[in-house]
């Protein structure tokens, strides 16, 4: 990454960061070779899909998690254990439900051992700054989501952190509330009233990143790496409808749907290969719905992703797994920020229920190795039955327990739709017979 222009030491310096999550016998590489600098007076966004390790990176910087390798320094001081120079805002707000707004805001000061009168004054100032006047004695459960997150901001700002870390702070809020909170935050930032020197935020919302950040670091998944840095040189306040803004959003979509070089187009959509491929849980209803939408007017089998996402009101975390599943099943192709239905995809969209199921089943067996594997085992066995644990153990050799469970669940639900094989939940047994 570029060094800051001034000769000063960067505010946050991350070098050669690597994080391995140990799971049973296997290890999962979450972050690999991450370098990052954060200078004074900038908002930097970490943009990526869920599970790409960006939240882990934020926690490593905050000192909540030790990295497996690499260094983190804040203002020249290496981070060991929870860092006092930073404060974090959480996606889930993370407020203590049994404490009032005031007590929640004071918690960081209380931990510093500050006198009650002094921390009272500071907390009231922060509450005032963030627009929570009058709510001091309320409990979090009495507040709306937006107000709760304001408490989260006040709690972070009251300790006057050098760096404010934000972990998807707006993603649990509805669209309007999130927008209000974003612009209030930007106003404070632009007016220089934030008692913090820099902001580092994690997001999976492309527009949000372009709206707020001076720099965007795009993360790839499995393992998490920073693939691209994008400087946003638009003046604030930024206009979402500005063609330059739109172009930037388009570019980022294109980069995020880029295939890693050197891999065949369709493989490597999901981490792992063969039966060890980690699959997302995507409902067959959503798959069918998206195919129908894409096949119909105005798309006619071809769509540009940003407007499609906007129309479906889906964030990339919702949309990408669906698209990638369609791609895996060879019902669609995704490239350069566009999606295009294959011939099979078009056929599926026009077909009736039975034909759809048949087509889906064919593609499932042909292109999802785990489904084919289970089917083969069931075919070979005399009883045409096999316990789920057999496959679960196989999966857990190469992925975490949680991912194995999710992958198995995904295959079960797709196989049920395609009537490829049945699964008895109570007994935990796969079989070929379908109750009729």
């Amino acid at each position, binding site marked *: 990454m570029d060094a800051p222009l001034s000769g000063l030491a960067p505010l946050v310096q991350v070098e050669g960061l690597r994080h391995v999550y140990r799971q049973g016998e296997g290890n999962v590489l979450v972050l690999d070779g991450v370098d990052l600098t954060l200078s004074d007076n900038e908002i930097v966004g970490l943009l990526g899909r869920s599970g790409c390790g960006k939240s882990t990176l934020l926690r490593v910087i905050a000192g909540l998690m030790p990295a497996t390798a690499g260094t983190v320094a804040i203002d020249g001081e290496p981070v060991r254990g929870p860092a006092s120079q930073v404060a974090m805002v959480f996606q889930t707000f993370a407020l203590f439900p049994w404490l009032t707004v005031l007590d929640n805001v004071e918690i960081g000061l209380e931990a510093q051992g500050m006198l009650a009168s002094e921390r009272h004054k500071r907390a009231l100032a922060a509450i005032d700054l963030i627009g929570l006047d009058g709510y001091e004695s309320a*409990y979090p459960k009495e507040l709306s989501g937006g107000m709760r997150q304001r408490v989260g901001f006040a709690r972070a700002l009251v300790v006057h952190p050098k760096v404010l870390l934000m972990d998807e702070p707006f993603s649990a809020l509805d669209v309007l509330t999130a927008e209000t909170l974003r612009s209030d935050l930007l106003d404070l930032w632009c007016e220089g009233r934030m008692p913090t020197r820099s902001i580092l935020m994690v997001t999976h919302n492309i527009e949000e990143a372009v709206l707020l950040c001076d720099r965007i670091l795009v993360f790839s998944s499995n393992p998490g790496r920073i693939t691209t840095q994008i400087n946003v040189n638009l003046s604030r306040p930024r206009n979402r409808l500005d063609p330059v803004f739109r172009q930037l959003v388009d570019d980022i979509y294109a980069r995020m749907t880029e295939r890693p070089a050197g891999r065949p187009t369709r493989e490597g959509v999901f981490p792992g290969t063969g039966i060890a491929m980690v699959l997302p849980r995507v409902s067959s209803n959503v798959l069918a719905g998206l195919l129908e939408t894409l096949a119909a007017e105005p798309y006619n089998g071809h769509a540009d992703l940003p407007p499609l996402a906007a129309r479906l009101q889906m964030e990339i975390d919702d949309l990408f797994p669906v698209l990638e599943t369609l791609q895996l099943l060879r019902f669609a192709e995704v490239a350069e920020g566009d999606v295009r239905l294959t011939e099979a995809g078009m056929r599926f969209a026009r077909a009736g229920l039975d034909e759809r199921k048949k087509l889906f089943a064919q593609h499932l067996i042909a292109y999802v190795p785990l489904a084919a594997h289970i089917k083969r085992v069931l075919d070979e066995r005399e009883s045409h039955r096999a316990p789920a644990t057999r496959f679960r153990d196989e999966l857990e050799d190469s992925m975490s327990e949680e991912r194995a469970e999710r992958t198995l669940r995904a295959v079960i639900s797709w196989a049920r739709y395609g009537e490829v094989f049945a699964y008895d939940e109570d007994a935990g047994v796969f079989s070929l017979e379908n109750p009729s």
Partner: protein
Amino acid sequence: MDIRSVTAAVRTWPLSLGQKGALPNFYDLVLFAFIAAAFAALAHGSREMEAPLASLDLAPVTLDPIKLPEYALRTTLRMFAAILASLAFTFVVATLAAKSRKAELVIIPALDILQSVPVLGFLTFTVVFFMGLFPGSQLGAECAAIFAVFTAQAWNMAFSFYQSLRTIPRDLDEVSRHFRLSPWLRFRRLELPFAAPGLIWNTMMSMSGGWFFVVASEAITVGATSVKLPGIGSWLAVAIDRKDIAAVAMAVAAMALVILAYDQLLFRPIVAWADKFRFEQTAAQQRSRSWVYDLVRRTRLLRRISTPIARVASGLARLRLPAFGEERPRAVPGWLGKASDIVWILLVLAAAGYSAWIAVEYLRATLGPDDVASALGLGVLTLARVVVLIVIASLIWVPIGVWIGLRPWAAEVVQPVAQFLAAFPANVLFPMAVVAIVAFRLNPDIWLSPLMVLGTQWYILFNVVAGASAFPTDLREVSRLYRLRSWQWWRKVMLPGIFPYYVTGALTASGGSWNASIVAEVANWGDTKLEAAGLGAFIARATEAGDYPRVVLGIVVMAVFVVLLNRLLWRRLYTIAERRTRLD
């Protein structure tokens, strides 16, 4: 109405049933060996101390009505002493288990088994032990009675607190570490409030169960030692000896008043207060209510008293107590950690082997295989009683509970009554039943049995009421729309709907019945002795005779039965309830 608190409590599993793995494992055997050996050692030690005990001279308990309030107070004070001891135990032991993996490996299975050991079995040894500790003083007997109540409460409470500590939401844990809360501040601001609803509910339920044991443990005879501590239990014992039915009635009335006061002045206010700690980001629609709590909240006087206390507390909070080491997340063990775990487990195993050997040696000195066989046989008899009674109680209370639960007005009336009845020590009522059995010359083998569920059946009732009240309205409407036939309605709609609640209630009732068997299978009325064949009577008789090896044998056998029943039946039912009744 406390229906919501009941449902909240249902979500925190009683016992360790939330844990995985139903079958008793090797580890249970290990812990069993320890506990059996501890009993054997206690029994052996207490035999030595027996001589000076007989000399203990208490002021005799008289059936003077003027004394009754004082006796009631003494009984109540014992309850409070026990609850304080249980809380202290909970905070120390559960915290240790939650923060240290090595401690956890031993503590949690131990708690699980200790929960299954009959409470009154402890009494035999602890009386002798504590009286030896304070020779010639009443304190020893007091400690023994308090300890009996403690053993009825502590394991459950510690388990609840441990589970809360292990399920602290990740984001709140992160906030606490992020803002570098000191361990003390973390305990005050995060761990205690988060654990409060579960712990308080468990404490209150344990205390309800505790009245039974405090009454049973006040008048004790172990071999040559006979103690009657001033209290309602001793009053009752004297009344039984003298066949004084009026005195028994007075004891029942006094107990009812005590329980009523406990329910109104303590249970309800505290549960209502604990509402504020419920971990829930949305405002509750239905709050637990208590007139006492509302009163307290409104009074200025109390606020004035509490302000300085709060000030002292916040001053204390600012004290930077020496940290017990940096708060660190529980790391996945590396090879070093694994190696030290193995060493630790080997040490535990070696100690367990030794303990088992001691226990077996102790029992073998006086007992043969015949004794074991007869204890097992009697265990089967008591098991049959427990099972039959729970089935009968279920057949009666499930339909009634459902009927009540589906009618909010009825639930509001019945729920507090059921909770009151559950707290009321049934052993105070035993003499009435015994008088009837004697008068009508009934067969004690059959007619003493209902006493075992007399006090515990209410758990089934109020859990079923809670379950039926919480049954989703839309599902009720669906079943009405499709005109489900009555049997179909029970089988497909209502029974699955209340199943988790029912399991909680039946489990509590079954555990309580095993405990009650020790006092229910043997009953006296003056010189008349009634006895039903069973493991409870076996233990009771051995206790009275001061036959320690048989007491140890009886306790171990009963604990084995209870553990097996828990693992083979209740835990499985829980797993089914958990899996079936969830939509996600």
